[in-house]
């Protein structure tokens, strides 16, 4: 099994961003300090061995053309007096003939100039690093070397490096602690916010308090509050709808029960038949309402997300739907017809589109008197395909034309039985298909026309 990817961490990120540059800086500093510290240590101790070399040169005499060294005991003791480093000396002629001291000292460089200031160089004696000062007095035929082991120099250099490095280490450590605490402190309002939200009940959709959230987290809290607000509205709509639906169902159920009780109480067959007939129509109304509620649930945005969309020839589908409604129209003496031709494709779900058209045709038939004309038409309008259902019935008053799309809204004074959901279903399905629905008077300000516009599917070739 693959290990799950670690989530990004602010703390880890900040550590990396702090440690990487500071660490590099520390490394460069140490290297620079190393060089500087040694130069400094050499400066301090080179003077001492140079002075010793000059002092020793004054003890050298030339006798009978021979170079003679007369080293008093005091001078010998002075050379041995250092406790941490050993000091060696050598006297030799400029021709390279050894005179006195320690033979193993490195030979003087050829560039040595008699009378010049003493100069120092690094070398080794019996495998041990030494610093050597060399001095040739002016006009002399000899030179003097003083070599010293480097313990004091190492110690001084290390002390200098340590004194530079320690604050740097302290700085990194303090920075790390600062990051750790700072992140914890910075995130505390968010942790509190998370606690607040997780302790909430599912019903509590009040906005979260933005005030304690850090400035950087404000977009998050703002988005969260926006979502809560929308959720609240959706829930309120849903609650209102359930309450309305329950009320709408209770009414016909009450009627059914009343009629059934009347029938039970009566001995007169005619009265019983009358009640039973009312029970049948009442049941029809109730089941129509239940069907409409189910249709509306299917047309909900969440429901439409699952819908199977594909390219549909709207002309053909609507011609089929219209034909299905012919028996109902003939039964009510209504002339139901269809207008349209040619293929006009939209992307949609055929079941929902049938539902949409069925509601429009049902409404038109129900609201038109016998002998009226109802026409279903499909035509192209720019980049849209328009489905319209037109009747020459009594029409809808201007003030009502938008409200009829609301759930459970029924036109005042209408005697037609209906659930008040038909046009709400139509609009919801239209919106789910990226379309729109509107209601206007029919041609010549007579009757009603409902037009649903769908975006034309790209598959349809442009008209020749």
């Amino acid at each position, binding site marked *: 099994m693959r290990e799950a990817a670690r989530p990004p961490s602010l703390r880890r990120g900040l550590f990396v961003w702090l440690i990487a540059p500071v660490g590099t800086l520390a490394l460069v500093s140490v290297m620079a300090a190393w060089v500087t510290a040694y130069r400094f240590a050499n400066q301090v101790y080179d003077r001492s061995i140079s002075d010793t070399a000059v002092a020793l040169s004054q003890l050298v005499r030339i006798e009978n053309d021979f170079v003679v060294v007369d080293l008093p005991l005091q001078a010998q003791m002075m050379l041995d007096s250092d406790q941490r480093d050993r000091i060696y000396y050598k006297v030799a002629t400029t021709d390279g003939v050894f005179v006195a001291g320690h033979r193993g000292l490195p030979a003087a460089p050829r560039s040595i100039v008699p009378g010049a200031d003493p100069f120092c160089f690094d070398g080794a004696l019996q495998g041990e690093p030494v610093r050597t000062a060399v001095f040739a007095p002016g006009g002399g035929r000899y030179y003097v070397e003083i070599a010293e082991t480097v313990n004091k120099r190492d110690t001084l250099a290390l002390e200098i490096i340590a004194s530079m490095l320690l604050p740097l280490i302290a700085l990194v450590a303090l920075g790390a602690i600062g990051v750790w605490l700072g992140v914890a402190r910075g995130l505390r309002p968010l942790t509190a916010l998370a606690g607040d939200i997780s302790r909430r009940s599912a019903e509590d959709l009040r906005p979260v308090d933005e005030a304690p959230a850090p400035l950087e987290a404000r977009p998050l809290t703002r988005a969260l509050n926006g979502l809560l607000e929308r959720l609240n509205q959706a829930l309120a709509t849903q609650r209102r709808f359930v309450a309305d639906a329950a009320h709408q169902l209770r009414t016909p159920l009450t009627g059914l029960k009343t009629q059934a009780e009347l029938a039970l109480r009566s001995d007169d067959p005619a009265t019983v038949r009358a009640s039973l007939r009312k029970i049948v129509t009442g049941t029809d109304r109730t089941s129509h309402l239940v069907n409409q509620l189910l249709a509306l649930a299917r047309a909900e945005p969440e429901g439409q997300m699952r819908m199977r969309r594909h390219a549909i020839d709207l002309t053909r589908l609507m*011609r089929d739907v219209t*034909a299905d409604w012919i028996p109902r129209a*003939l039964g009510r003496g209504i*002339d*139901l*017809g*269809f*207008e349209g031709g040619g293929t006009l494709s939209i992307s949609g779900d055929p079941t929902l589109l049938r539902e949409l058209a069925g509601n429009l045709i049902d409404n038109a038939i129900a609201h038109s008197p016998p002998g009226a004309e109802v026409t279903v038409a499909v035509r192209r309008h720019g980049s849209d395909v328009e489905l319209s259902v037109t009747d020459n019935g009594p029409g809808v008053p201007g003030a009502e034309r938008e409200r009829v799309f609301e759930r459970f809204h029924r036109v005042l004074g209408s005697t037609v039985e209906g659930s008040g959901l038909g046009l709400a279903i139509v609009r919801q399905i239209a919106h789910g298909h990226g379309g729109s629905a509107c209601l206007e008077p029919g041609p010549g300000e007579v009757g009603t026309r409902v037009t649903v516009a769908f975006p034309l599917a790209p598959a349809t070739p442009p008209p020749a």
Partner: protein
Amino acid sequence: MRLLVVEDDPVIADGLLRSLRASGHAVDHAPDGVTADQALERYPYDLVILDLGLPRLDGMEVLKRFRGRATAVPVLVLTARDELDDRVAGLDAGADDYLAKPFDLPELEARVRALLRRREASRNGRIDIGSVTVDTAGRCAYHGSERLDLSAREFGVLELLARRAGRVVSKEQLLDSITGWDEDVGVNAIEVYVHRLRRKLEPAGLGIRTLRGLGYLIEKPPDA
């Protein structure tokens, strides 16, 4: 006629049995899919009314097994309305008609009569619409005992309309049914045939309706 009602809801089953028995049929009842499957294997029914949501064995499965035994017995499927989307596919699985719940009893009775009549017609090749009989085998039509004087194409139009009585038939469908591959007949010719047919059917009291933009329809006479 012997009918089988497959329905698990006792109230609906009771209503169906009473109504169909009152129409003079012998009706058996199967309350679940397994019982239905066994009954269908054992007895020669003339019609099956099948609910899809069944315990023990799904109605679709019952239908599939029944059609697997290659019988021409008509099946009327009952289905809850919101199942319809998926279940209309059931027509392909071998149902002859379907009815959504809740249904009107008169509607169900009419569908049963239509299915039984269609079965009868396919057996003897005769379709009755009102007082007119269409003899699909002899390719002629009678008003009572009087033979109607129809051309071959007029008969073709009448036959298709009669087969789909009460339903809309488009001009294109009529055209397809009366013309062969090599014949070049325009859609407008259909109007001429229908016009002539109307005149000839008038004495029999049979009307052909023109439906704007849709086609034609012979109205089913009220069921006797």
